[in-house]
């Protein structure tokens, strides 16, 4: 069978077309789908777990599961939403496992994850550390869009897809995160 997914799949080829081809056994179609969603999936997983290794493991596990479950995908569904739902569920599982091990989110934060570079840590200003602490203290619904947008450079559209929300909600949450951050940092200044 000829592959419809070339090395660079044109964006006009919809996800659902590719999914159909993948279901029919076209592995390059699945490769193209994975390439489309790998980065946004990783950005979500990283924002959620704050640990690069764990995020990569989760995303890879998610794509293995997606591949295994290809037969269950219905063409009436949205491929992106379906994929991201699996990624979200796996991230939730990972967080649950972490909680069971009494490994709080703060310990797996960005700064500790970059552990091997003490120079970076030394060079990082106190302000940046304060900012990171304030971000870690944000409620999850604000923190994840913020990390995905400013940390991983994801668009509103991609974040909306990853979280299963509308783009306008993402805009509102980013603005809300900014307000909370400012208040918290001002409070730190006063102390």
């Amino acid at each position, binding site marked *: 069978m000829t592959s419809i997914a070339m*090395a*660079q*799949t*044109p*964006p006009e080829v919809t996800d659902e077309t590719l999914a159909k081809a*993948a*279901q*029919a056994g*076209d*592995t*390059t179609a*699945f490769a*193209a789908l*994975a*390439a489309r*969603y*790998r*980065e946004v999936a*990783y950005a979500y997983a*990283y924002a959620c777990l704050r640990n*690069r*290794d764990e*995020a*990569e493991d989760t995303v*890879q596990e998610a*794509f*293995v599961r997606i*591949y*295994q479950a290809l*037969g269950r995908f219905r063409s009436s569904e949205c491929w992106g939403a379906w994929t991201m739902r699996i990624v979200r569920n796996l991230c939730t599982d990972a967080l649950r496992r972490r909680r069971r091990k009494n490994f709080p989110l703060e310990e797996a934060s*960005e700064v500790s994850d970059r552990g091997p570079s003490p120079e970076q840590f030394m060079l990082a200003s106190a*302000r*940046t550390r304060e*900012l*990171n602490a304030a*971000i870690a203290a944000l409620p*999850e*619904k604000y923190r994840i869009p913020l990390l995905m947008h400013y*940390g*991983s450079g994801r*668009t*509103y*559209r*991609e974040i909306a897809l990853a*979280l*299963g*929300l*509308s*783009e306008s*909600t993402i*805009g*509102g949450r980013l*603005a*809300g995160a*900014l*307000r909370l951050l*400012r*208040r918290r*940092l001002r*409070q730190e200044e006063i102390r």
Partner: protein
Amino acid sequence: MKLLCLWNERHLSRLAVAGRTLPEGSRLADHIRHCPDCRRMWQEFSLLTTALPAALADPLPMPRCSLPTLPARHTRRPVLRMSLATLAVSGLLLATWIGATYGVRPKGSGHPSAVVKVFGTPTPSPLAQAAAVQKGDPARPQPNAEKHSHAAPPCDCPPAESETALPKLATLEDAPIPRASTSNEVPEAISAEDWGKLGTLYAVNGDYADAADAYGRAYEAQPDPDLALAAGQSAESAGEVNEALAYYLHALETSTEPQLYPEEDEQWNEKLVMLSLECSSF
């Protein structure tokens, strides 16, 4: 801080997130010119949006490599990583065997090498290209970029997602004021009345999450059951049922007019039961 300044905070944060400048000649721009609080607020929002990409940038983004080659950069957990890779490949082999035997796999190749190839395909993400050409889609922010080119979202829609691990609420003891932890984050002393007015403004504009927050702060400043009720209604409209239930329980507890919320009021009890069920279903 004045009520108008509190109201402006919302507009300014949205403008900053969208990477926009103050609209020339607008009432907001005029206000900022004369109000030091709002001017400082705007500067701080702008500084934050500039500082965030640099502070949060992931120095080592997702690699475009296959499962077997992953340990090249990750030397901290090679055993676990290898075992995960082995597990994944074994799982795929098993799935292939089951598929070949019982015919339940997707049609075509199910060989693990195909999947490994999937992860190893160095195809650039067309989603980003598609997103960029999409009309009205916000551009992705560049690290250290001073401005972003997002279109400001018109409104907040009620969140449709379910937050993880929401606790079941049964009594007032289990129902803390949802915003209590952030109540001391605002250094300025703002009266309960002003928070209440702000909540009304948010609610009128359909911004129910912010309205619930403002009413909640008003309730913290002055435990008035009407404020708790308003906070609960706003939270419910925003889809935050757990918060809503907490506020409703506070409203019932602090009410000095028991005839308004009688225990035998079936409608009210039904609503609480429904919300409790909704909360427990998360």
